[in-house]
């Protein structure tokens, strides 16, 4: 559904989305990478487990939440891709380990 604009930067970055390696232009947001790779959704809502994907692309709707490099509930539209970044599905509410640290 999405493809990069022709005038975009030539350089590319390889990231992993749900374990799949995807190459996107430098400066792409993680959410745009998710869309470019053809994913319909990247999270499941905390209570009802409904699938959601990037929507507003400007940090307000929270529908693009994903786990990025191990950090839960990241707004992927606000984060620029870095080489080797691991983007994975946010499955329902995040966990927290009270006894850790």
């Amino acid at each position, binding site marked *: 559904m999405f493809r990069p604009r022709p005038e975009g930067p030539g350089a590319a970055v390889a990231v992993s989305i749900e374990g799949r390696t995807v190459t996107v232009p430098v400066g792409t947001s993680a959410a745009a990478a998710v869309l470019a790779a053809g994913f319909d959704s990247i999270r499941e809502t*905390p209570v009802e487990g409904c699938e959601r994907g990037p929507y507003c692309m400007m940090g307000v709707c929270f529908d693009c939440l994903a786990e990025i490099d191990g950090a839960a509930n990241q707004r992927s539209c606000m984060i620029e891709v870095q080489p080797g970044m691991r983007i994975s599905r946010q499955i329902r509410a*995040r966990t*927290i380990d009270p006894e850790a640290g």
Partner: protein
Amino acid sequence: MQRYDSIVIGGGLVGSAIAYGLARAGLKVALLDEGDVAFRAARGNFGLVWVQSKGDGAPHYHRWTRRSADEWPALAAELEGKTGIAAGHQRPGGVHLCLGEDELAARRAMMERLRVQAGNFGFDYRMLDRHELADLLPGLGPAVIGGSWTPYDGHANPLALLHALHKGFAEHGGRYVPNIKVKEAGAAPGDFCIRLADGEIGAPKVVLAAGLGNAELAPRFGLSAPVKPLKGQILVTERARQVLPLPIATIRQTVEGSIMLGDSQEDAGFDTSQRPAVMRTIARRAVLAFPWLRDLQIVRAWAALRVMPPDGLPIYDQSEQFPGAFTANCHSGVTLAAAHANLFAPMVAAGELDPALERFSARRFDVPAAA
């Protein structure tokens, strides 16, 4: 003029609970709500249904709070049955944490006073040491040295409660009128009329439940409600899987997983702005209690105004000058919602407040002149 059995002024938690109780009792009720320009304490609540710490030196208040907490499960079940809206009520007991020896000693003394003052009514509480608390609450910070526990405390979703009360009220045939700020009213004993945009409505009874608005409104009905705003700020974290098994006075995890941090108190007039210094204090104390909270993102924060009578206790009155006019004011619209729907509304319907409420009259603020 359109006639009702009762007019309730104020569509927040206090007014909605009373209006719901009246409509359920078969009265024809109009509920007047100011609108989004109002201060709307009901939309800024923390959501505790809290008993411990209420009514030190005022056993009638403690008892009223306990009765409400006891009525809560029935009200929540009834509302869910009628409206399909779950108010998210849970009553697993609650804990107040103490971060220092002075706090703990003061808490211990207060809890014991509450027990003594409760008399035959009883007050079941326990002071817990650090180890007992650590068994109850995961990841307790080293700063916590003890706390108090009672089985009476719980929590709920205040927005869902408000929604359910409004829906239940409508299903019992109540008429909800939004965007009306009542400034003028015709008052005579047992005969009140209020002008709306589309004409006058009249009723033999009127209940003033306009929160901070009651201060101006009450004198028009021969009543007094000297309430003032007390600002509270709240921080809300991202949702996480359930980790807190019971609510703490300043920290609770909602059914959906958000963790709410709060309970600041600022005398700042009608200013509802948020202040970083206060937000920082809330966050710092929360992290002292549970260091793992520092890993959670704050996703929302707000400030709202409590409706605070001079002594912190609710105000309930029936006007002597204009019988049929009642006031209801409190800062615990969530905790007392069940008392308002199930206990207070029937008194209004009967036209007489129970003697148990006599001590809540605003006449308590009338200080006799010095001899």
